């Protein structure tokens, strides 16, 4: 990680006073275990170049991290990429210049715009070259980007950025102090309120009118709680795109339909939401009158943590039955699920390989024996109305069935089981393609 600044023209040699570094001696300091080095490769009256670079300790760098037990943690670009780590580490060395406080006799040079070239890198970023250029061009730089050499990738993911233009030293350093971390989009430390203040200070004079202000604020502060506190933050009305709103509506419709159906059932004291995910449906079941116990079963711990938070949030509502989140899986036998009033598989089966389903339904219908089993799954025929062709509605879907396919499978699963089955649709009805969601209800015949 390095940055070099080249200044040309008369008065170039003043730079050494502006940054308060002796042009004759290489500078080296230890900053929290990292070496910060500065040297002037060029120093003449009319042309001055200083190079500042940081050498982290590669072993120290990988200590104490949450992903200590992942191999990718040990081979990473943090040792090389210019980043917030870099900016933090060089801040002290360049403090005089950044704060614009050289010896008094050079104060007049602080605002002086030099003809300069500022190069830094390598950068690791998800931004395109044009997007990087768009960050600097509005503040008066010409941007050049060069790439490293790759023998295995089409083009190397390592890039080096060179800016040229007419800027004061202080402003140039302020620009990169904000924009290098924005490009890198990876913060090495925990972000807190001081970040807001830093952004306020270094952004002054150029960020207010930057066309990408919102992007910069967002990438600099990352968290909504911080972003909204920034003085550069502007609230924009959120426009939901068509696709998203449709999906949300269908989800809600589905939950509503299930809840309404359950309300009509005589036996609904105990309900199992199998494959409950983040508990969106489970939480709604808690409001149904007559429900005493809800088991929200889900194998993913991550999803379960979210579900538990969700259940906790509505805790205070009177008459609300809090679902119990429990780890569990459809591929195992689970004695807790026996003799339950209602078992629900809401948008679950399509995440399972087709050839594993009959075993699952065998366990549910013959061993768990719920009074009612509710199964929902997408209706593949309806996908044309979403302008989808072969693709599935979700990356993890292993299949999507037509109404005929679903009916066939339902029939097969319930063969030789004392269950009455009926299939319904959920969502807007189309004369040819039916409704977007299909729902099968299995009701156990009274013995």
């Amino acid at each position, binding site marked *: 990680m390095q940055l070099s600044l080249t200044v040309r023209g008369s008065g170039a040699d003043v730079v050494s006073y502006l940054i308060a570094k002796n042009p004759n001696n*290489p500078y080296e300091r230890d900053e929290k275990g990292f070496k910060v080095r500065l040297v002037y490769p060029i120093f003449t009256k009319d042309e001055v170049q200083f190079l500042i670079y940081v050498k982290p300790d590669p072993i120290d760098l990988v200590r104490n991290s949450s992903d200590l037990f992942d191999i990718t943690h040990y081979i990473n670009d943090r040792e090389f990429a210019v980043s917030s780590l870099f900016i933090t580490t060089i801040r002290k060395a360049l403090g005089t210049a950044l704060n614009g406080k050289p010896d008094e006799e050079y104060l007049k040079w602080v605002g002086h715009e030099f003809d300069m070239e500022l190069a830094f890198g390598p950068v690791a970023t998800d931004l395109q070259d044009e997007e990087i250029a768009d960050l600097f061009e509005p503040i008066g730089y010409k941007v050049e980007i060069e790439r490293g*050499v790759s023998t*295995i990738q089409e083009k190397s*993911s390592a890039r080096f950025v060179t800016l040229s233009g007419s800027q004061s030293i202080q402003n140039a350093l302020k620009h990169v102090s904000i924009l290098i971390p924005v490009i890198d989009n990876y913060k090495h430390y925990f972000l807190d309120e001081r970040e807001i203040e830093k952004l306020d200070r270094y952004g002054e004079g150029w960020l207010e009118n930057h066309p990408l202000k919102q992007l910069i604020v967002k990438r600099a502060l990352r968290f909504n709680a911080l972003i909204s506190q920034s003085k550069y933050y502007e609230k924009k009305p959120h426009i939901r795109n068509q696709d998203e709103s449709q999906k949300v509506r269908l989800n809600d419709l589905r939950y509503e339909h299930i809840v309404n159906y359950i309300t009509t059932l005589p036996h609904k004291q105990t309900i199992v939401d199998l494959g409950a995910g983040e508990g969106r449906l489970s939480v709604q079941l808690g409001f149904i009158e007559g429900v005493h116990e809800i088991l929200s079963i889900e*194998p993913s711990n991550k999803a379960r943590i979210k579900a538990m938070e969700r259940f906790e949030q509505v805790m205070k509502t009177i008459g609300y039955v809090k679902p119990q989140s429990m780890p*569990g899986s459809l*591929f195992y036998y689970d*004695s807790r699920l026996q003799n339950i009033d209602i078992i629900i598989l809401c948008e679950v089966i399509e*995440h399972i390989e087709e050839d*594993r389903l009959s075993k699952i339904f065998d366990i549910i219908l013959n061993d768990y024996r719920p009074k009612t089993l509710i199964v929902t799954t997408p209706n593949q025929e309806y996908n044309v109305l979403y302008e989808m062709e072969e693709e599935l509605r979700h990356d993890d879907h292993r299949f999507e069935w037509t109404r005929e396919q679903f009916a066939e499978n339902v029939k097969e699963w319930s063969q030789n089981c004392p269950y009455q089955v009926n299939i319904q649709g959920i969502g807007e009805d189309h004369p040819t393609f039916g409704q977007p969601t299909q729902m099968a209800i299995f009701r156990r015949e009274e013995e």
Partner: protein
Amino acid sequence: MTTIHLPPAGIVLLVGPSNTGKTTLLNQFIQEEQIQPSEVVSSDQFRVLVSDIEFISWNGRPKDESDALFYEYQQISGAAFEAMDYVISKRCKLNKLTFIDATHLREEEHEKYLQMGKEYHVPVIALVLNISETELMRRDMERALPRGRNRIKQQYQHFKNTLRFIKKKPYRRVYMLGEEEIQVVNVSRLENPLYIDVGTGIDFIGDIHGCLDEFLEMLNKLGYKENDEGYFIHPEGRKILSLGDVLSRGPRSIETLQFFQKHVPAGLAYMIDSNHGWKIARWLDGKNVKMAHGDENVAAEFEEYERNFGSETAEKLKEQIKELLLQAKSHYIIRKNGVNAVVAVHAGIKDYYIGKQSPRISDFCRYGDSEGLDESGKPIRKDWTVSHKSSELILWGHDPKPQPLLVNNTLNIDQGVVFGGSLTAYRYPEKQFVSVKAKQDYANVPDNPLKEWERKRLAAPNIMKFLEGYSVLTEQYGEIRIYDDGVKPALDDLSHFTLPLEDIVYLPPTMSPTPKPSGLEEYLEHPQEAFEYYQANGVDKMVVEKKHMGSRGILFLFKNQEIAKEYVGREMLGTIYTRTGRAFFQKELQEKVVSALNQDLVKSGYFEKYNTDFVLLDAEILPWNLKAKDLILNQYAHVGEMALLDRYKLKNSLQQALDSGKDVLSWVQENDAGIDNAKVFNDVYQKYCWETEGMEGIQIAPFHTLAHSSETFFDKPHTWHMEKNKEFSGISRLFLETEYRIVSDEPSMKAAIKWWEEMTEDGHEGFVVKPESYITRHKGKLLQPAIKVRGRKYLHIIYGIDYLLPENLTRLKKRNAGKKQRNALKEFSLGVEAVNRFVKRESLERVHECVLGILALEAEPIDPRL
């Protein structure tokens, strides 16, 4: 002359008032060394132990004094009996013989000891000393501490009462000794009839159920020869031990019973009591029993017999068979050098029943542990095997399993010959199995237990067993504890990403690098330390295999689609999965590769040659980028290019500074070295990557042939596995031969090190050092199954571009591979266990608990660079 027959364990109650000579008699036995002094307890002795006082006389005292003394004596006696009974109960529990030297004139005392005998399953016998009242009076006068006339009189009254009730008590035996008999009494001590010395060997036979043809074939296989008198004799003097149920259900019960009726009394065979045997015994004894579950066949055979040989012969035979069955023991203990080695029983036993006999024990041994009835009226069997803790191997039958089932040091050898399975013999001390296939399904019942087992074999495992953490009992490592914080992420994986549970019959263990870092300055790892580890642990011969840099893959390949159904419950040609149980390739490519391998194996006649339905292989699949493409591009290539770009840029600037006279020579040199390191890094990962097009370019190096359908190969040395590797490379173009060397002495070790240096300098990952045997122990301790030794260059992509810089290397050498090694052993043992269980056709749940365990252990936090 009266002979008292003493059981090997139990309670002998002496009965008689004071002065009858109980103590004298016992002392005489001790003197004659018939019994040991420690086998006698007496109330007098315990009175002294608890109070220092043997006897208190209150005769002739004023009333208040005698009351006080009497009260004190009562207190002492109470405490003494309590202590004594405690000791007796402990002796009973340990199956010891105890003589109780006290008067025992009150009925409740008899009740107490009979109850104790029942509780601890030991016999109680009574030894009554019947001496006249006048003689007792005379003797009391001669005592140092006379009990007094009144008390003798009183005691004698009680004694006369005792004589009346004692006959009705359930004593094993009651000996009545008068004055004369006492003078010439003789003692005989019985051996424990349940003990059998292993002698020249025992052949244990599972449930025969009248399958005489198969039984005779078995005798022949075991080497027994019929002599002129019709006895089957083994030339080495081995004996047959049947685990019971020799009759019922099958075609030739009577002849089978006759075999044992002939061989048991001759001391050539043993036969254990069993549920069907007991049923027929009671039927023959005239009891009203319901003849069902194949017992009706025995009745029919007897009717037939009577028609053929007349009622007199039939009655005689019935009497003989009844005797045989009634005398059959509940279990036997086979002892080697006087130490219990094997317990043979029909249906099950509890550890504290071993070596004892009682009706309750007999019942348990006949039927096993049953816990009420299920919905359809069948007994729910409780699993007694889980509570077995003592060191004996328990051999049992009764409950047919498709293969001999070893669980928790209990071994089931009933393979359901009468249900069309096979008859099993277990040879001890050789520990070998001999099997004879059934000629047909004789029982022909709808609820065939072998088919039932098959049907339930693939039932979904019970998640409640695992959720809170659990233990797996492995043959190699003993008990392995799996904790819930590993189980949960593993279950998550198994619910979302892996193949179906039944397809994952094995997962490979993690592999430790050299336990110690290299002693050489410029190396982190070096073969020397791997060799030293094995040599220090008594391994002289090692197999060193080149480590291919790809991804681990398990190949489970079937002979054909249909046959897979028997093993995994659905048709398929096979599957290839990763070390975490996920499909190795995308669906289409997976099918292509599996079907190509199947064609090659079938064409070569592999399945026929080895008479197997499948082959299970542990392999490395190349190239690395097949599985790791994203990792390589996003991680390795990216980091390598970043490093080079950074350092080349620095080089230019620093060089310019140096040229203009700045004192930065050391920075330039340091940066130049960094450039070289980054170049090495970039070369290394690229060496393991090449383009593949469909199947073109894919290479599979199978280094372990784990199993065929009827056997596993953990008993084969790695040289054998390498031979198999070579065999496979000749069968399919997809299979890659692995180079290997054998290290057995100094020169071969030096050569191996040289080989390693050359290949790693060339950028190869390195090699793996294995002890010759697949499973190796030293002084009982399991050794690492393999140790990887990675090259200097390769390690750049593990420990970082600049790991070899001295200031980095010294710190990295402080690594600790302890936990990695422990987990490697646990995962290895679980993997071996999983395959062994799978091949024995054990339930999916039993196989899966091992697989889940490996995944859970893999979720534990361990430095991934090791």
